[in-house]
């Protein structure tokens, strides 16, 4: 059986009279990572919303395994980790939501195993979102994303709310978890260094259009477009590409 694929075909999204995405075509195979980079306002969040079905595209289709994406119950890891947790509920309650919703029984040790992998003390789950750190909240939201074992997880700027040390740890953690659980990851980020280090492919999004789709190595050595060059040079100046080059 051919492995499942996320296909975004010729998708345009309109907001009011303006196009926020125009003729986007991308694909992502199960178990691999697609990193979409772009500046703020390029349409990254709209892309995520479109894939998740929160925004209806004006034209084009988005499918997972030739079926609507929501059938596979994709998970989302958000930029602001605390926002994903209801301040009135315990972390555990929110983390278990995907399991409760799926109606499938799940053994308690999966939660414990995940907590172990993410180095999150289990008793932290009984606290409220206001009582844990942002780094802990981000790890909890990754647990939540993983707990029902979805084949596709979307990451919306997963590192930008974290400090430098935690950023590195979290990036590695996501890569390790991906190896272990085999989900496809669509990572949207403005951090070219992160995209180049962990993406199997990089798509450059600018003003609602895809400028190019390449491998990280190729992108770093020879970007296909002027805009790609500018992005790369700016990133090199900031020292963001050290690990890849």
């Amino acid at each position: 059986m051919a492995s499942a694929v996320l296909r975004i075909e010729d998708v345009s999204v309109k907001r009011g009279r303006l196009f926020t995405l125009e003729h986007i075509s991308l694909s992502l195979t199960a178990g691999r990572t697609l990193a979409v980079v772009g500046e703020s306002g390029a349409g990254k969040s709209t892309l995520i919303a479109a894939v998740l079905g929160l925004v209806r595209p004006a034209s084009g289709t988005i499918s997972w395994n030739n079926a609507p994406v929501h059938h596979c119950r994709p998970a989302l890891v958000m930029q602001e980790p605390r926002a994903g947790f209801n301040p009135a509920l315990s972390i555990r309650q929110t983390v278990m939501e995907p399991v409760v919703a799926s109606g499938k029984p799940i053994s308690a040790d999966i939660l414990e195993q995940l907590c172990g992998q993410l180095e999150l003390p289990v008793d932290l789950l009984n606290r409220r979102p206001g009582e844990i750190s942002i780094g802990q909240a981000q790890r909890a939201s990754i647990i939540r994303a993983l707990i029902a074992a979805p084949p596709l997880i979307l990451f919306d700027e997963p590192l930008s709310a974290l400090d430098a040390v935690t950023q590195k740890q979290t990036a590695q953690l996501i890569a390790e978890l991906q190896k272990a659980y085999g989900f496809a990851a669509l990572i949207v980020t403005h951090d070219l260094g992160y995209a180049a280090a962990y993406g199997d492919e990089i798509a450059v999004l600018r003003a609602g259009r895809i400028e190019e789709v390449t491998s990280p190595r190729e992108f770093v050595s020879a970007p296909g477009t002027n805009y790609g060059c500018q992005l790369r040079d700016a990133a090199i100046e900031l020292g963001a590409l050290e690990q890849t080059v």
Partner: protein
Amino acid sequence: MRSVITLTILFIVLAVVGPLLAPHDPTAINIPHRLSAPGDEWLLGTDALGRDILSRLLYGARWSLGLAFLISVIGLCIGTLFGLIAALGGKTADWLVMRTTDTFLAFPELVAAVVIAGVLGAGTGSLIFALCVTGWMRYCRVARGVGLTLKTRGYVIQAKLAGMSALSIARWHYLPALLPSLAVVWTGMFARAILGISALGFLGFGVQPPMPEWGTMLLEARLHMRSTPLQMIWPGLAVVMCVLAINLAGDALRDALAKENNAV
């Protein structure tokens, strides 16, 4: 929140226990002792038919407070439901619900209540219906407002993505956030319902005699204002005390919530 809960319990106790404390049968007619002054036998005196006013007041608590409670809770349910439909049901649903709300708000409350209760025929059922029809719009607006802000919250989006049913999302994410604001509205509407019931009673469209409702008692007492003015004081005083207590509790609740919001 605590003040409101305390008050609610107090009123429920009053409505339940009140009649047990009543020294006389509230409907027992005693013509020889009609319109007697307050004294040992009748602590607050008797009315035109010789019925004990204190007993009627205590039984009346059941009507006034109990009905007001019922009406305000029905309004709460209807309003919250419509408000959430407006907030979550998409643009068309929102427009429809909001224009319906505007339409109902276009009638002055008491005028509409008088017409509805009067046209449907005097009686407790019409009274409840009239005050429910005129009393759900505030809840609706508040629920819609809160619902609209919650809709875009991360945890609500996450719950939706996880495939939680609409019912559990409403139960776990909307209700807890809605409750405090709705509680503030509820205290206001509870007080208004008490006033509305007694106003309709006073106009003769409410609870029908011989049931001892405070507004109806006032209507009867009014006829004997010159000879026994005290008879008219008691039911009014009862209404004022209840409404005042509820309003103060509502104010306290609102202040507490404002403080909490500032702290976060």
